[in-house]
């Protein structure tokens, strides 16, 4: 009797543990904790020489705890500690007016607007090129090699030239940066959409042929819907790469605003905390954008009855 009463308790204990470890939460938390621990260890290790120098110059005596605390609270550390970065992000995001040039929101918005514009133009351009490539043999042979060649040129080399040339013809501000995003983001869309528009099976194309469907009808009723999963997958890559393009576009011209400018200014003045918070802001924006495209992907496929 007592054994029977006890057994559920014995069973439930491993049940809870295994349920937690079987899910995603525990593994993710473990990995994050490990990364943070490693980060702290490196922060102490990398900032130690500078801290020891500082003590010696000041002729101070120091204890181990004081040393540990000081290495993690330097003003210009080699590697800022996680809590320094977090508090910097908090300070520059929530305590400063978004219109201020010291606000991370302000710089983030500058970069985000260029990213979105570049992504929109890049996606449109990519789709148009893919449609041309799929429908015209000559374009397939002539354009595709150039599309691939365009991506072998380092963007860092070409970005300043684009900015300078566009400035010379009177275009400045958002558009030149957006065009660098475009330059990077159209590529995955072209490649994905060419594959997507060619994905209908021969039998599905034959079916259209038996209906005597026009090229436009075949495109609109068969090729375009078939390409949707490919489009969204490419757009996920394109939107992340657009952000990289926008940041790169802000660096070579000594732009005064944007996450790229923030990174550059940080490296000029040894403001490593500022650099790291800009990096994390960029990563957060990229993750959010990719997630939004992912949600759009799911919604569209669900409407098309193909929810995965």
């Amino acid at each position, binding site marked *: 009797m007592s054994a029977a009463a006890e057994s559920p308790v014995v069973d439930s204990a491993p049940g809870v543990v295994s349920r937690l470890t079987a899910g995603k939460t525990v593994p993710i938390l473990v990995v994050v904790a490990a990364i943070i621990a490693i980060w702290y260890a490196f922060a102490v290790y990398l900032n130690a020489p500078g801290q020891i120098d500082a003590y010696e110059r000041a002729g101070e005596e120091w204890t181990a705890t004081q040393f540990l605390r000081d290495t993690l609270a330097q003003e210009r550390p080699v590697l800022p500690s996680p809590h320094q970065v977090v508090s910097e992000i908090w300070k520059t995001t929530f305590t400063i007016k978004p219109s201020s040039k010291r606000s991370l929101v302000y710089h983030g918005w500058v970069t985000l607007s260029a990213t979105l514009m570049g992504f929109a133009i890049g996606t449109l351009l990519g789709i148009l090129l893919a449609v041309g490539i799929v429908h015209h043999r000559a374009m397939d042979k002539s354009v595709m090699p150039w599309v691939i060649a365009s991506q072998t040129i380092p963007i860092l080399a070409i970005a300043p030239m684009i900015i300078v040339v566009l400035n010379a013809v009177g275009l400045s501000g958002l558009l030149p940066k957006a065009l660098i995003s475009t330059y990077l983001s159209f590529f995955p869309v072209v490649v994905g959409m060419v594959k997507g528009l060619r994905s209908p099976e021969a*039998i599905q194309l034959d*079916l259209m042929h*038996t209906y005597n469907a026009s090229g436009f009808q075949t495109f609109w009723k068969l090729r375009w819907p078939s390409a949707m999963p490919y489009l969204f997958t490419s757009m996920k890559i394109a939107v992340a790469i657009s952000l990289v393009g926008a940041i790169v576009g802000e660096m070579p011209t000594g732009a005064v605003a944007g996450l790229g400018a923030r990174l550059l200014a940080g490296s000029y003045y040894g403001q490593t905390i500022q650099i790291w918070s800009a990096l994390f802001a960029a990563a957060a924006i990229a993750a959010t954008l990719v997630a939004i495209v992912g949600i759009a992907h799911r919604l569209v496929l669900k409407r098309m009855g193909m929810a995965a």
Partner: protein
Amino acid sequence: MEGASVQPASGSVVQANGLGLTFQTSDGPVEALSNVDLGVGKGDFISFIGPSGCGKTTFLRVIADLEQPTAGSITVNGMTPREARRRRAYGYVFQSAALYPWRTIEKNIALPLEIMGVARGEKMERIARVLDLVDLKGFGKKFPWQLSGGMQQRASIARALAFDADLLLMDEPFGALDEIVRDHLNEQLLKLWDRTNKTICFVTHSIPEAVYLSTRIVVMSPRPGRVTDVIESTLPKERPLDIRESPEFLAIAHRVREGLRSGHSHEV
């Protein structure tokens, strides 16, 4: 034999004379069809049977203007296949249902009607009618993946019927289905043929299926693809499933089997 199979051009839906088709492949030319003479009369149910590579599917595709013959001549409704296709003279049912996965069954059936510019009211009416005809009433709003293989193939038949072409071309439509489902669909197809008065060209590799369904059976053999026998069925138009055990049925099936065997003996 070949002389007997040529029908007078008047009233024939498909008329092929000396038809040949040679594919140019990297291994050299392949003669998919050679010197095919065949007439298909209005209201016929013709089966094409033979081993793979005998050109039965190719012949169907030539009728549908999906392949171009390299010799001889062929007319569909007295026109060239291209002209016939432009006038939407036939409905084609493929080996797989080939339903578009992002369209509901209803929208799949609507596809040819959309392309042909049928008005909305008439479209809905036709969809309802053909869904009823293939016994899929109430499944219009489902997506293809929600239906079984047999139901999907019935939906694809409904799609081919939707625009009222007089000629139905069916390329092994039940080949991928299990025997029980296939029997059921064969029975339904005969009823449908009886009700709609269509001319049906039906490709199969199953002898019982060919004998059960057809008014005429065209036996073909490969390398080169050609017609070796044309068998007129003596079975009545009314055919319950158990007619397949009647001596008459078995006699026809025997002749088909002999035809297939003699076709093979050529190459040995």
